[in-house]
Each structure stands twice: as C-alpha cells, then as structure tokens.
C-alpha cells in the first residue's frame, strides 16, 4: 500500500469526471466509488485519454459515462472480455473495468474466472451491493441466502459466492476490498491495484440504498483487515476462507507475470505469407 496521497499539482479528480449527471439514487454508494476512482487517477496523474473504463450493464456499470476518459458501456456480463481484447491489443492504455456483483459474478462469472487466470494487466472494480439494483431488487450471487425478494420469496437458500476466494483460486494477482463509505481508502487501493502489473481485483462494498436499506449499516461493520498484505497464496487462502466479508484492505498481492501478446514481432507484409501457397 502506498502512503496517503499528497496533494497533486496539475490533474485533479475533477478532471476525470464528465459533465453527465449520474442516474443513481440519492445516497447510492456508487457516487463515492466514482470519487475514489477519479481520485486514484489523479494520484497517478494518468492523462485521461490514456485511460479506458469498460463496463457491462447495471447501476454500477453506468460508471464510464460519468468519467472523462474513454469508455465502453457494453453488454451485461462481458466487460472483462471486452477489456481483455482492448488491453492485449493496446498495452499502452490503462484499462479499468467497473461493474456490479450480478454483472461480474452471475452472468459474467466465466470471464471473471478466466481473466484472473489470464492475468492481463488491468484493474477490475466490482461495486458489490449484493443485489441486482438496475432490475429492481433480485438476489445476486453475493446475496445472503435468507434475503427475501419477489423473485425468491423467503430467500434463495444458496450459499453466497465469495468473490475474493474465487479470485485467489483462479489466479488474480492483486486482491483487495474497499468500502464506498471510505473513498480515500478505496482510492488508495485502486492506485495500488493499477500499479500492480497483472489482473487486479478490487471489491468495493457499495450499498444499494434503495433495495438494500439494511446496507446503510455497513459503515458500522467494516474495518481495516487486521493483517498485512501477503504474497503467500496459502496464507491468503486461509485468511479469505474465514473472512466475514467486511475486512478492508489489500488481502493478497502476487508476483505473476502479466499475460501479453508478442505484437512487436517481425514486421512483415502479408505478401510475405504467400510463398506457402505457391505450387
């Protein structure tokens, strides 16, 4: 973790925000995540045009439009794949993926698994509110089994999906948890996530004040993880397996080499390939 960000000359968080007014409900945690991301970018002094923010569909996935970087608001669940194509072909860009727990862990679960494994250098920020906000309140993979809703009266009865454990098990290189109520701390996590080469995963607990009123109580439960970041995957596993979901901070940071394509190979023209066909 880097030290507290010093005041930045030049670029400020404001420079990374667009003029568009978010559609989010008043009080939605995602506002603070937007702040955290833009603060992190300001800290890193990245030129806005060299940043691309990719998302799927959901309240949280609206993020790109609120930023003054390049953005892609794609289809539900496929943002990580789209971002992979972008980053592999444009290694010079800083690529962020932003989205929700439904987008990333339900419909997008397979891409999440394979992105962790592939370890392309990007940062994936999931605003976890344990609900489908945009479609008005259905359980997501991270929802508690007994949360009542119209689609699952009485609760799903399903064990919640543990994103950090899955990220670790499938190979993510940087794993952290933030809380929207702490935009400065979250900004620091994002700075580190971007700085760490490879696939960085940041879960941000971001309350849905409309469909999960109860999450307003999160601010009382979250706490800094009582441990240092570790590089030891075994220790991280043990730690995460018993984690209650409210420990904040960097929970794992590895040293795997990011996956890159060899795009700077011999520059031949297509005509050079023709000899293989000549009779």
């Amino acid at each position, binding site marked *: 973790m880097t030290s507290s960000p010093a005041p930045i000359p030049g670029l400020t968080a404001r420079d990374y925000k667009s003029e568009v007014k978010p559609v989010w409900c008043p009080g939605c945690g995602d506002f603070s995540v937007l702040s955290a991301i833009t603060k992190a970018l300001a800290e890193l002094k990245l030129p806005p*045009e060299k940043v691309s923010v990719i998302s799927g569909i959901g309240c949280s996935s609206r993020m790109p*439009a609120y930023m003054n970087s390049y953005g892609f608001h794609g*289809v539900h669940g*496929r943002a990580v794949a789209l971002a992979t194509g972008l980053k*592999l*072909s444009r290694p010079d860009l800083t690529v962020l993926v932003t989205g929700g727990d439904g987008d990333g862990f339900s419909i997008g679960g397979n891409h999440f698994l*394979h992105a962790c494994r592939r370890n392309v250098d990007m940062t994936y920020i999931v605003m976890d509110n344990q609900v489908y906000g945009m479609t008005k309140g259905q359980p997501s993979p991270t929802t508690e089994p007994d949360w009542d809703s119209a689609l699952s009266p009485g609760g799903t009865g399903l064990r919640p999906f543990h994103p950090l454990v899955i990220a670790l098990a499938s190979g993510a290189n940087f794993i952290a948890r933030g809380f929207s109520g702490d935009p400065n701390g979250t900004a620091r996590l994002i700075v580190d996530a971007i700085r760490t080469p490879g696939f960085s995963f940041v879960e941000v607990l971001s309350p849905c004040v409309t469909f999960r009123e109860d999450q307003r109580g999160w601010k009382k439960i979250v706490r800094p993880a009582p441990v240092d970041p570790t590089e030891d995957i075994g220790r991280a596993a043990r730690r995460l397996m018993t984690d209650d979901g409210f420990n904040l901070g960097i929970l794992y940071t590895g040293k795997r080499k990011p996956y890159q394509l060899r795009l700077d190979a011999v520059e031949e023209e*297509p005509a050079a390939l*023709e000899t293989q066909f000549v*009779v």
Partner: protein
Amino acid sequence: MTAKDDETPSLSIALTGSGGAGVITAGNMLLDAAAKAGCYGLFARSSGPQIRGGEAAAMVRLAKEPVAAPGDVFDILIAIDWHNIDRFAVELPLSTESLVIADPSQGEVPEVIAASGARIAELPLKDLAKTVAKGRPNMIALGVVAGLIGLPDEVADEVMARALKKRGDEALAASRDAFALGVEAAGTMSFDGPDLWTRAATRERWIINGNEAAGLGAVRGGVRFVAAYPITPATDLLEWMALNLQRLGGALVQAEDELASINMIIGASYGGTPALTATSGPGLALMSESLGLAVASEVPVVVVDVMRGGPSTGIPTKSEQSDLNIALFGLHGDAPHLVLAPTSVSDCVFTTQWAVTLAEALQSPAIVLSDQLLGQTRAIVDRPTDIAFVSQRVTADAGAGEVRRYALAGGGVSPMAIPGAPGAQYTADGLEHDERGLPSSRAGDHVTQLDKRAAKLDGFDYGNHWAEIEGDGRRAVVAWGSSTGAVREALARLGSRGHEFRLVSPRLLAPAQPARWTEALEGVERALVVELNHSAQFYRYLKGYCDPPCPVDVYHRPGPLPLRVGELVAEIEKWSRS
C-alpha cells in the same frame, strides 16, 4: 473415362481406407503433384465421426480448367480396404465407366460399390507393399493412380521428396519403391482418361483451401487481432492465423468461449486494431447478442462463419448453407449489418479482405458466410490478385474541437476517436444514445440513430464487387457462396449444349440490394435460386427484400452431400422447360 463432349475435361479419383491407411496423405500428394504438372484441381476429404482410426476418403478432381465442384462420378476409386464403406459410399458416386481397384485380401467388393456396375480391377495392395522394405499400400495406390492418369514421374518424385523430407531417406526410398510398384501395376490395367498435362501454367498457381484463403484475405484487409474459440470446421482457419499473424506483428488469443471471443474483438477494434473471429453455427449463435452491441456502438468487427450441417450440433464435419437466416436476422432489435459470402475457394481471399474493408469503413460488424466445403477443400487456383481497397476507418482527429461520436454526418459514418487521442474521449454504448453517445430513450434520438445506422450501409457504393454476374440468357440461375462453383460449371455445360443462362452470384448479401438485383435480372424471364439448405433461405430472403422483377423458383436441398454438376444440369434443364 474421357469426359462427355460438353463436360470440362477432368478426372475424379477417390482413395479410401480405414484410419491410418494414409489415404489423406496420398490424396494430398496427388494434388500437389498434379499442380506441379500444370493442372487445376480440388482435394476434399471425408471422414467418419472417429477422431482417429475411422474410415476416410480422399476425393481428388483434376482438370485443365479451374474447377470448383466435385465431379459427377469418380473415374477411379482405389480402396486400400472397405472399412465402413457403407457409411460414405453415397459420397462416392460411380458409373459403369468407373474403374474400381480393390485388394482381394480385403474381402469382396461390397454390394454398394459393385451395384454401380463399375469395372473392377483386383490388385493385392497389401501383399505388394510387403515386398518393399517399409512399403505402405497408400504409396502403391498413389503409384497406380499416377500410372493410370499419366502423371509425369518427376513431379511425383519431387512431391514425395518434399513431403517425406523430415522422415529421412529410408522412408523416402520406401515410398519411391512402393510408388514404382504401383505405376507398374497400372500398366496392366486399361484406363483411358483425358491428358491433363499439356498446358503449361501461364500465371502463378497456388494450392490453398478456403480457410487459409479467408485468413490471407483477413490479413490483407488489415486484421491484426483475432480472438476465437475452436470449432470444426473453422479451427484450421484459426490455426493458420495463429501461426501467420505472428509474422505480421499481430496475434491470436484463445478465448474461454465465443461470448468472450466476440467481445475481445470488439474491445480490440474499439482500440483501433482491425479484428476478426471465426466460428461455425453454434458459435455464431452465441455471438449474436454482442454482434448487436457492435451494431449499436458502431464498432467494426468481422466474423467468419464456416458453416456446417445444422441445426444444433448437427453434422460438424460436413457442409451446408443453412446459417444464412441467423447471419441476416439473428440479432435482436433492428440491427443492420453486413453479410457477405465468398463465391469460391480463392474468392475467400477477396471476399474476406473486402469484408474487413467494408466493416472498417462502415463501422459495422460483417459476417462472412464460408462453409466446410470452401473452407476445407484444397484447390489449385491462379494466384488471387492483390486488391488495395481505398476506403478505411474514419477516425476523429485529436483535439479538433467537440467530438460527437455518433454525429449525423458523412452519410451515417461518424469519425471514431481511438483511445489515446486527447480531447476526443467518449463512451461507446449499446444503450440507445444521442449524437454524443449519452444514453437517451427519447423517440427522436432513437429514430435518428436507427436511420443513421441503416443509411450508412444502404447508401454506400459497393460497386461491382457486390456480385458476380456472367452470361446473358433470358433465364438466370442465382447461387450464393459455395454453390456458385457447381452452378457455374453446370451452366457452362448447358451453354455448350446451346442453352444460354445468366449466372448471378451475390457476394454482398446484406444490406439487401433491391436496385442492383433488379438490374442484374433485367431482361430475364425467370430465375432459379440454387442453394444447399432445407428451408430455401436465400430464396425467401430475395422475395421478401428484393422484389425480383421476374418470377423466381428455387432448387434447394440440405447437405451434407455437395451439389453436383450433373444433378444441377438435370434440375436446371427440367426447370428451363417449365
């Protein structure tokens, strides 16, 4: 057998045997040698569902002129064994003039074969092979064929030498000896075929299959990024790309599934790199949601669909033209896009290159409908010409004031900013949006953006590339994709019998071109659509979208058997009397 007077002089040869018998190797060598000897030809293979050890047939057709369809019957069938012959005998039509060469040690000639009335010649291939150290029956069979058709010795030798280089001198010697034994054996058989070796090649000739050709077209068009998931019969296109892109500073990524591959290429293209994927029906189906994203966000991408038998998993190793409907209409909402179809193996180069160019110029997804027949047939062709298309992606200049990503200018093509360009930032969006790309559910924005996306495709001048139009009869036959080859040859045969027909083979299938259709069919009394699918998909499309200026009929049937020239000659004759 010499061809009938009105037939293209050609020879069709099949080699069959169980897995490991090496008939595919022999067939490839036969084609390679024939090419060196100056003739044209095709090589197609058929194999059973087994991954290894199943039966196989190598089907070669050699001719003086370029050919694009299998012959009507096989002149020579040489069977190393009769393993599972029942299963694919229907793919090996024979006539009383055919010569069947069989090894008596493999049992009697099966009824399905004998019933054709073909001449049978017995040859103990297996025993003969034993007389040569490390000799194999397939090389003897190759020698027999070479002897019968008069293939010049030196070319066969050259091809063997090249093919076996890695296996060492001993292997080469064994093959040579076995080959010689075959040639010798052929001397004892009577066979009377056309002489295909007189014509020296005037232009550079290639041997290429449609999958390689599509790959070459793609890289000529500028593709440098491919993301894909393996699927028969598109995998070899991908494998060609994986190897060859490396030399051009590009690369292929194997995605976790087709949902990922289409999104990866959308991402790469959004970043400025022309990008492509290849798949077959099941994979195309999985891509359809995200193809809609490419339409709405106006990101160019190319998808080559190497079609196979459908529906569902269907018949993965055999050809059919039954993905036209999904290619045209498989996207939800009103989602105009490009659909093209190559008209021959070598046209896979041109059409794929053109598809990339159009996609880039029109900021639209393009689907290229190849099929197993084009993709996996190795053909001897004249070197496809290298076309430099002028149109290309219109990008937004950095810092040139306010950039409206989806501005209503340029006939619907708005300049596209590439990430990295300062001051031109925008968010590409699959939500309906206004000119700036901001989400909008206003009726006005919806209709303008729908109009824009349709207009840019409808208003583009596709020039003459849109179709191949040949001949000038009062009757026209309309074919598309891989059916074109067989139709063209059928019309030539009918032409030499004095019946003139017009051939219309559209390369651009969508957007629909009603005006061009009308023009192409001007003066035509009646037209016949020919296609290889069960529900007459192109015929229905033509009627629904193009208001053809004359009555239109259709001859169609599903795969997996390819259309044969003789079949079409008979059908077209019958129809032309109607």
